[in-house]
């Protein structure tokens, strides 16, 4: 199998070079046949990479321990899910996964744009193929994931690093890679546009969506990384300015800048050189980020270790990218001339420009800080490092200015704002900002920087609300529909603009969460059994320590109770898990009590079984959950901006008669949405009168949770939980499950049931360690998923209905959109 994998990689490399050469030759000779052949070869690359990935995953699933990569990153006892994710768990596989993603995206992009941008396609293929060739070359000559042992292969693998055996870690890298790899597509189109000289705005239209899509995944990857750091690494925070985190942030900054400045080019034909540059720089930074984390240039806890050969290869590739791309830009400068000049600094394009400069500054600064140890060593010979505090000191003001611009930009008119409309536009947002600031003062939050952050959050929310409010009013006047339809129609008319505003709401929420850091509490205590400690308003008591084992790992769990004002409110079970074969590197399993206002966060730092004492790190993290919620809102906004043209057609109709039908539609859709989400909120504890089941499988999440919390007392199963002990027809566990089901039917709550079981079976022995939380933790995602799913369904239904009812609306939409926007802008100027 391994030799098949290597052969596939080699074949892909050959096909890549063929695709690159034949496309360029075809384009130059205008030979339809050669170009078609290039496209065919390009899709063949994807097929080959799919096959190679299948071979790799197969090797993991079957446990082919003759392959070194499989030995290093998996073992035979690992759950199926992690066997698959081991594919990208190490360096070699992650490079292969990169090529795989790039080939899939490339094929998709070429397929979608094959008609519209026919003249660009050959060069797009050539560019992507060359990038793929580089990575394939790395694999073939240096880091072949299919390398085998020459003699006696080990019988079993070393297992995936325990820190990576985590749901977030399983989806974080692919998400981040999707973002990284996706940025190659805009770059390829940019290069193709430069080479062919088709530098009108059409190539931008082709890449706008791709950039947005990649940006979304980059954001998602960064957020997941933060959640992972927060829940898995157990130091109480989520962002430490670690080089690997920074590597993901750099292209995020420049991509964000591009998504803004592209609007200026579309609207005013300015910043054309700038946009091409941003596309190139973003791509360069994705490669640079990969280089940084994989070559050992910077030290990091997450990095993949030293590799000087890899570093040299990467450096060569990066220099080539820069020289080639910027030579092209310089060559095409005459075609990239701006058609307009900046009229006034009080204009929206000026705000965009400023936003771009600051984002670029942020990227350069983070780059500088990340490379500082390496730079200082190279220049002075002394290795100097910068601490997180240094980044915070600089990035806090940068972030606040960006937040301010988020609120200011939409309030300014294109070209030039007059004083009169400034006053009119800024009045309410400023009032909102001042109100939020005052509120923060009342809570005694320091003005710098949290207080200011709250005030700016209020200001931006004010701006966005005002935008939606005024837009909806204008639309109602024009179409005579009800408020809701007008609102939906408004968003539908200009999805990018209003989707963007929703993204801004998400950003505000994220900043709101960041500001909570000002009130963070962090303490380390040593508690003997029965002792308690205070942090903030909470009192935490140690009830003892238990050890359990589930076959894959040994789990040591501290049982803590949390009380406020003498009243017990919750239990926390921070734990340490030692995985087989990784006993030397136990993982900390953080226990978190989440509320919208603050998280109580407990880490078991150490323990002594003899006297049941626990060393705990206790952290109170105010508002931290708003960061994750903010990302959800951001994803929603991006989703709206990415929706296809027709999905809103029902609401953008103009005639009152249609509108009446439309508002019914909206009502229906809302019902659909609500009912879609309803099952999630259904609470456990529903009673079933008759119970004649032969085995008590959990009917509700609550019952499932209880089955996992209580241990079977039969003595034969080695303290499995009630949920697990069913294999050998154990009558004890069956009986206990029955008792549990009966108590749940009687409507007893968690504590009552525990009490009853403890009374009957004695002691705390029957209390299992809290469940392996993996998937349960993701439960909060389900409302979002169901919401998103129903949104998709709604979208399809909407498209279907509109097509049947009035097929001509879709055609009329573009003209109307332009008109509407003009009215909107003029109203802003006149109002």
């Amino acid at each position, binding site marked *: 199998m391994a030799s098949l994998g290597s052969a596939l990689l080699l074949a892909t490399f050959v096909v890549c070079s063929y695709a690159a050469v034949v496309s360029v030759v075809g384009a130059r000779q205008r030979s339809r046949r050669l170009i078609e052949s290039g496209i065919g070869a390009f899709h063949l690359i994807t097929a080959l990479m799919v096959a190679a990935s299948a071979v790799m995953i197969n090797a993991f699933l079957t446990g082919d321990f003759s392959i*070194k990569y499989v030995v*290093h990153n998996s073992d035979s006892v690992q759950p199926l899910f992690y066997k698959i994710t081991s594919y*990208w*768990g*190490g*360096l*070699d596989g*992650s490079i292969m996964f990169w090529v795989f993603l790039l080939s899939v995206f490339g094929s998709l992009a070429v397929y979608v744009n094959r008609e519209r941008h026919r003249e660009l396609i050959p060069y797009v293929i050539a560019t992507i193929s060359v990038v793929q060739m580089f990575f394939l070359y790395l694999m073939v000559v240096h880091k072949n994931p299919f390398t085998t042992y020459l003699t006696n292969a080990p019988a079993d693998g*070393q297992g995936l*690093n325990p*820190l*990576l055996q985590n749901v977030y*870690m399983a989806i974080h*890298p692919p998400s*981040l890679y999707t973002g990284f790899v996706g940025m190659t597509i805009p770059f390829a189109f940019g290069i193709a546009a430069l080479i062919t000289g088709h530098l009108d705005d059409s190539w931008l239209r082709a890449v706008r969506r791709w950039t947005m899509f990649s940006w979304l995944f980059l954001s998602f990857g960064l957020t997941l990384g933060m959640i992972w750091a927060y829940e898995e690494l157990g*130091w109480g925070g989520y962002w430490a300015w670690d080089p*690997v985190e920074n*590597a*993901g942030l750099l292209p995020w900054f420049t991509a964000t800048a591009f998504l803004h400045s592209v609007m200026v080019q579309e609207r005013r034909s300015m910043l054309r050189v700038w946009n091409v540059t941003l596309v190139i720089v973003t791509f360069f930074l994705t490669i640079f980020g990969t280089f940084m*984390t994989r070559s050992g240039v910077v030290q990091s*806890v*997450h*990095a*993949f*270790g*030293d590799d000087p050969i890899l570093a040299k290869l990467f450096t060569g590739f990066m220099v080539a990218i820069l020289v080639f791309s910027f030579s092209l830009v310089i060559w095409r400068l005459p075609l990239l001339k701006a058609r307009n000049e900046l009229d006034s600094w009080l204009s929206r394009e000026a705000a965009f420009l400023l936003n771009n400069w600051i984002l670029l500054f942020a990227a350069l600064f983070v780059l500088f800080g990340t490379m*500082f*140890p390496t730079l*200082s060593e190279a220049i002075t010979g*002394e*290795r*100097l*490092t*910068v*601490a997180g*505090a*240094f980044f915070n*000191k*600089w990035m806090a003001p940068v972030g606040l200015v960006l937040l301010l611009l988020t609120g200011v930009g939409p309030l300014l008119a294109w070209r030039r704002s007059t004083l009169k409309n400034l006053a009119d536009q800024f009045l309410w947002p400023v009032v909102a900002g001042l109100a939020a600031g005052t509120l923060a003062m009342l809570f005694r939050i320091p003005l710098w920087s949290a207080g200011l952050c709250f005030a700016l959050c209020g200001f931006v929310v004010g701006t966005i609300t005002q935008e939606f409010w005024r837009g909806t009013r204008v639309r109602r006047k024009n179409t005579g529909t009800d408020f809701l339809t007008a609102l939906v129609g408004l968003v539908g008319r200009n999805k990018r603009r209003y989707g963007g505003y929703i993204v801004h709401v998400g950003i505000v929420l994220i900043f709101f969460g960041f500001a909570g850091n000002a009130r963070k509490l962090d303490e*380390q205590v*040593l508690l*003997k059994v029965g002792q308690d400690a205070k942090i903030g308003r909470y009192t935490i008591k140690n009830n003892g320590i238990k050890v359990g084992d589930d076959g894959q790992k040994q789990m040591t769990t501290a049982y803590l109770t949390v009380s406020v004002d003498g009243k017990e409110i919750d239990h926390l079970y921070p734990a*340490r898990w030692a995985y087989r074969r990784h006993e*030397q*590197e*136990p*993982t*900390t399993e953080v226990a978190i009590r989440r509320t919208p206002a603050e998280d109580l966060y407990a*880490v078991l*730092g*150490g323990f002594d079984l003899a006297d049941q*004492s626990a*060393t705990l*790190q206790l952290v109170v993290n105010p508002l931290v959950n708003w960061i994750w919620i903010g990302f959800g809102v951001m994803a929603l906004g991006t989703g709206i901006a990415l929706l296809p043209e027709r999905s809103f057609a029902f609401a953008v109709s103009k005639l009152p008669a249609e509108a009446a039908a439309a508002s019914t539609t909206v009502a229906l859709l809302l019902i659909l949405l609500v009912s879609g989400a309803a099952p999630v909120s259904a609470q456990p504890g529903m009673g079933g009168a008759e119970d004649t089941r032969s085995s008590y499988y959990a009917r509700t999440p609550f019952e499932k949770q209880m089955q996992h919390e209580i241990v079977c007392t039969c003595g034969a199963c080695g303290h499995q939980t009630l949920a697990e002990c069913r294999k050998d027809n154990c009558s004890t566990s069956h009986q206990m499950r029955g008792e549990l089901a009966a108590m749940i039917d009687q409507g007893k709550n968690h504590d009552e049931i525990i009490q009853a079981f403890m009374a009957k079976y004695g002691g705390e022995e029957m209390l299992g360690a809290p469940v392996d939380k993996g998937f349960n933790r993701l439960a909060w995602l389900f409302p979002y998923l169901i919401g998103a799913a129903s949104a998709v369904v709604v979208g399809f239904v909407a498209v279907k209905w509109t097509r049947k009812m009035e097929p001509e609306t879709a055609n009329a939409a573009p003209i109307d959109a332009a008109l509407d926007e003009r009215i909107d802008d003029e109203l802003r100027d006149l109002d």
Partner: protein
Amino acid sequence: MTHRYIKVGLTAAVLVLAFAGMLWSTLREGTEYYKNIDEVMANTAPWQGKQLQLHGYVVPNSIFVKKETLEYRFKVQNNPARSPEAGNVVDVTYKGIVPDTFKDEAEVVLKGKLSPEGFHTDPNGVMAKCPSKYEAQEKSASAGS
């Protein structure tokens, strides 16, 4: 037109200067020297009181914890444990939770300040790499991004 260029040039110069000044002042407080123990112990005087990141290896059987507290006392040497010569050794104090990988022979980086009595580690200032066996031989990747 030249007038305009002068204005732009002056603004740019002021901005660059302000930026450089701010960068310099924050860098002076924000940076830490990353040093091996031998480099510091050869001549301790210039390093006293400076913010340091000290790299070394935990001396075997040197870790002591004061009973029922989180106060640690241990020794760190310049060269890896079991190498023929230990190199310079520093006494270290620390209060707080240590990482899982902190143990005898572990490679550590300590953030803190040097004083005549020894090295005082900042809260959360202990970073340790595990003395893993296979990684040393294979130099393979073990952590993901």
